[in-house]
């Protein structure tokens, strides 16, 4: 295994020689900085500081950097969402605090810090306080195996994608802890709904990944990016991409699947009773999950840090993440919220069969062309995906309950006739 990662010991001598500047930046934002630090601490010489200490210090720096990318990304994703939603609704969005509203997140943070933190008298106080922590920490852990650039990985896990699936579903424990401990009817309803929703969409999410894993033959996220040699996986896996996108927006509890905080039914779901910084921490967790999941989508389907033009890898990666986040915001501005029964139907009767079909079509294609898939399969795949989605949607539409037409109350009729 190579040692040239963000957070492991000294680089071998001459590692940076003969590389162009772009290539160096692709590996590390500050080329040679970690290496210089490592050597200054005596890591390369015998009798210097032991390797584990260097690893601990560099690992701490790497973890700090990754957590801060999430933490600094969140306020600006929130600002981007407010700006874009404003534009979608013919408003300007926040533009008062700072130029173009750029200081709005800072103002919001200060406001949340100085708000009173109320805990209901009947709440289970320990669980109530722990819930934001349990909700946020798994979301931050999601960033650990993401490859930002070649070799720029905090933890190069061989089970990368399985680890991500495991860690993200752990966050729902925090949601349920919050909903249960608030001792509020709306919170409990919201928490029950979110568990039912996440449990239903977890399966299509995991099954959509299987197709990508089959194409690559590895669960390691960096290997999955390396495996997309000429074209991104999206072109081989259009059906898997559709299933994955829908399942992810349900997993994130974003519109049109935002049942847990359906404002018009449950006040705001599981965080009805939260206020002050605890509410802020929950909000950070939700938006950090959006950033993390868009990073995963970029890695799995859009060939991560690779791109057609010579640009540092992390720039490509952040660009793709931004596109996916804007896509989520667009969907939120466009599609109205689904009912509970519609959501369950969509998950179990639409996405799950599609994910299974996708697995076997991919397996058949690989079996027929073991030495690499031919290019003409790309339009065939897209046509197949369109046909299967259309047929499945039609079947689901027939199977669903008929729309009820409510007759207008008589008072309107008299008003109209007079």
């Amino acid at each position, binding site marked *: 295994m190579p040692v040239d990662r963000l957070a492991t010991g000294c680089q071998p001598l001459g590692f940076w020689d003969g590389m162009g500047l772009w290539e160096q930046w692709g590996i590390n934002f500050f080329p040679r900085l970690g290496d210089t630090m490592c050597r200054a601490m005596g890591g390369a010489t015998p009798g210097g500081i032991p390797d584990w200490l260097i690893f601990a210090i560099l690992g701490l720096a790497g973890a700090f950097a990754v957590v801060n990318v999430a933490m600094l990304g969140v306020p600006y994703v929130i600002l981007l969402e407010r700006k874009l939603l404003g534009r979608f609704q013919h408003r300007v969005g926040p533009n008062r605090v700072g130029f173009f509203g750029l200081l709005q997140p800072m103002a919001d943070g200060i406001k949340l810090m100085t708000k009173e933190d109320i805990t209901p008298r*009947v709440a289970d106080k320990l669980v109530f306080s722990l819930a934001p922590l349990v909700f946020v*920490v798994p979301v*931050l852990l999601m960033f650990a195996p993401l490859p930002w650039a070649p070799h720029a990985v905090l*933890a190069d896990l061989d089970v990368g994608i399985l680890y991500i699936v495991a860690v993200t579903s752990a966050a729902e424990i925090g949601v349920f802890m919050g909903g249960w401990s608030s001792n509020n009817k709306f919170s409990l309803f919201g928490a029950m709904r979110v568990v039912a929703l996440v449990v239903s969409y*977890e399966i299509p999410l995991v099954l959509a990944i299987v197709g990508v894993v089959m194409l690559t033959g590895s669960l390691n996220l960096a290997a999955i990016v390396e495996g997309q040699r000429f074209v991104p996986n999206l072109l081989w896996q259009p059906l898997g991409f559709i299933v994955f996108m829908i399942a992810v927006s349900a997993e994130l509890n974003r519109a049109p699947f935002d049942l847990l905080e359906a404002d018009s039914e449950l006040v705001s779901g599981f965080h009805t009773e939260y206020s002050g*910084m605890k509410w802020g921490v929950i909000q950070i967790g939700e938006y950090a999950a959006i950033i993390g999941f868009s990073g995963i989508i970029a890695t799995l389907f859009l060939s991560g840090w690779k791109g057609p033009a010579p640009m540092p890898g992390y720039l490509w990666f952040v660009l793709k993440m931004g596109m996916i986040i804007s896509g989520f915001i667009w969907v939120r501005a466009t599609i109205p919220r689904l009912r509970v029964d519609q959501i369950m139907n969509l998950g179990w009767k639409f996405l799950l*069969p599609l994910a299974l079909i996708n697995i076997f079509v991919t397996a058949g294609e690989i079996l027929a062309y073991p030495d690499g898939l031919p290019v003409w399969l790309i339009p065939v795949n897209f046509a197949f995906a369109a046909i299967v989605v259309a047929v499945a949607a039609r079947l689901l539409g027939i199977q669903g309950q008929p729309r009820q037409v409510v007759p207008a109350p008589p008072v309107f009729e008299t008003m109209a006739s007079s």
Partner: protein
Amino acid sequence: MHGDYFNDYTAVLIASVAGVVLVLTAFVGSLLLSPRARSALKDIPYECGIEPVGDQWSQMHFRYYPFAILFLIFDVEAVFLFPWAVVFLSPFLTSAIFYEMLIFIGILGFGLLYSWKKGVLDWR
């Protein structure tokens, strides 16, 4: 050194400690900065502005339960699928693994169709 396995999971451990420290810092910051004005009315559970009616522990409908069972079945299936998908390109295996997995998924798919026909998947 203890190998890459140790390194990578230590990095995960360090990241989780960093996350806990970060959240606790936010809590301590709000503890130091936020005002405290307790009152009995503020502490009652929120119920759209009126006094809470009845017990907060409302009963949950049975319909959540079949979904939990189905989730267990299909999540275990997904766990079985991952090792299969990883070795699918391996030259040491024949195409028989494709048909074996087809049979396995076929049985589970039949189970899904059965529960569909039985109406377990309908939310009511």
